């Protein structure tokens, strides 16, 4: 700091240096972004007469929430919910079971390079393919029904859990793991004593979060024929039974909120 004389600085205002130093580039980017937004908005083609027509239908759907009908399709709703719960729990358990070894393999600080690359490839594949696309493929292979939903969500869980677990392992305290290694432990003992205690709270928290995601996803997957409450919801929409649809949506909302509350309690307990 001796290069700049103090006298030159005294009495002068100080400004934070801009993010992009070159003023020409800075203004070009700014005006370019603005022009893009204007053009993009102008290119949206809205059919206002269609909207006016649709608004009343939308309103009918919204008002149905004031008169949800749990009863007239009660049996279907119950069967759908039960199927969704089964899909959710089985896919979460199987997905997590598979995520743990893949997550260990995808953590650069504990896995050798070949294992790391294979596990990362599995994670990338699982994350690149959207659930809906996987579900459409699996419905085509296994036919309509909950099996396709179960497989889809197990596959999606692997991508989600393995990636986040691997990231948590990569951020763990090196010192604690090193101390266990220095005792002459085997690799498995090292994982069990040096790594697992450090990532367990996050693993439990993520598992609860994934359970909640899988339940919501199971409702969406029904729309493409992969079983669960989504199938019941789809049927209700097809029949314009908005009050039944509203009932199903309310059940989904309440269940997701309950799961979230539960996961909050569990996560607070396992710190």
């Amino acid at each position, binding site marked *: 700091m001796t290069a700049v004389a103090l006298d030159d600085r005294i009495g002068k205002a100080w400004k934070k240096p801009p993010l992009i130093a070159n003023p020409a580039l800075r203004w070009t980017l700014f005006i370019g972004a603005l022009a893009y937004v204007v053009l993009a908005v102008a290119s949206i083609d809205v059919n206002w007469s269609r909207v006016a027509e649709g608004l009343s239908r939308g309103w009918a759907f919204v008002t149905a929430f004031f008169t949800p009908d749990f009863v007239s399709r009660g049996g279907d709703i119950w069967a759908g919910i039960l199927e969704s719960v089964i899909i959710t729990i089985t896919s979460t358990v199987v997905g997590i079971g598979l995520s743990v070894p893949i997550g260990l393999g995808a953590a650069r600080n504990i896995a050798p390079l070949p294992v790391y690359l294979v596990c990362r490839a599995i994670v990338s594949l699982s994350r690149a393919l959207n659930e809906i696309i996987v579900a459409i493929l699996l419905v085509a292979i296994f036919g309509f029904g909950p099996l396709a939903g179960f497989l889809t969500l197990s596959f999606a869980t692997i991508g989600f859990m393995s990636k986040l677990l691997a990231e948590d392992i990569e951020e763990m305290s090196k010192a*604690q793991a090193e*101390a266990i290694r*220095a*005792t*002459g*432990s085997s690799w*498995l*003992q090292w994982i069990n004593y040096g790594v697992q*205690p450090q990532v367990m709270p996050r693993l439990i928290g993520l598992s609860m979060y994934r359970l909640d995601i899988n339940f919501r996803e199971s409702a969406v997957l029904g729309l493409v024929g992969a079983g669960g409450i989504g199938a019941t919801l789809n049927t209700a929409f097809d029949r314009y039974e908005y009050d039944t649809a509203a009932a199903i949506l309310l059940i989904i909302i309440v269940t997701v909120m309950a799961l979230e509350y539960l996961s909050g309690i569990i996560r607070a307990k396992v710190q």
Partner: protein
Amino acid sequence: MLELKKLTKTYRTGDKALQDVTLTIPKGQVMALIGPSGAGKSTLIRCINRLVEPTSGSVILDGTDITALGTGGLRKMRRQMGMIFQEYALVERLTVMENVLSGRLGYVGFWRSFLRKYPQSDVDEAFRLLDRVGLMAMADKRADELSGGQRQRVGIARALIQNPRLLLVDEPTASLDPKTSRQIMRLICELCAERDLAAVINIHDVALAQMFVERIVGLKAGELAFDGKPTEMSEEVLTSIYGEEDWQATIRNVDDEEDAEADVAAS
């Protein structure tokens, strides 16, 4: 007992952490390793149990060349070298007892350790050590509930339950207050004397090292810069290791030391 021969470590970045370090430590000798940050003290200690792989040279413990061992042999050898860490390095979410028993991992099989079903002799020894370091009552507390000094005592118990021949101690007092630092250093040195253990102690606090150990080795930029008795420590030596500074206050004279000892004993 422990011999380092031309030990050299060059990191992939090209940093030469250690250059041709040759040292011999006889049985039962407690040696302090001093030197500025980045002089290679931590690297030296980690090259001994191969937490860091040396680039060349050899480490020989009781006639066995550690640098030549395979994975299984290295694990057996690591059991014989207890390590005590800077900032304790306890597994924070495990209990004190689990942390102490983890020192036996090299001796028990996976399922025993996984189910926490350690042999009774190990459990007895763990309690004996916890009693020795004054933490009997804390056995079932989680490690992160303890204070700094208490945690380091657990770290000491974990190293000793390995029944080691050598202690590797990396900055044991780095984050402790002056009084606790002395107590921890005293405990380590007492235990070494009781069990006739050799120890290599990395330490920043030159005065503290002079107070407790029988030999001081200075490391500067990866090379040996001093090797002698604590009483041979002089301003010139400190300047040669660390660079120019007023060292008068750092070097202890004998009178001072006895006063300090009396202080600690009284408190």
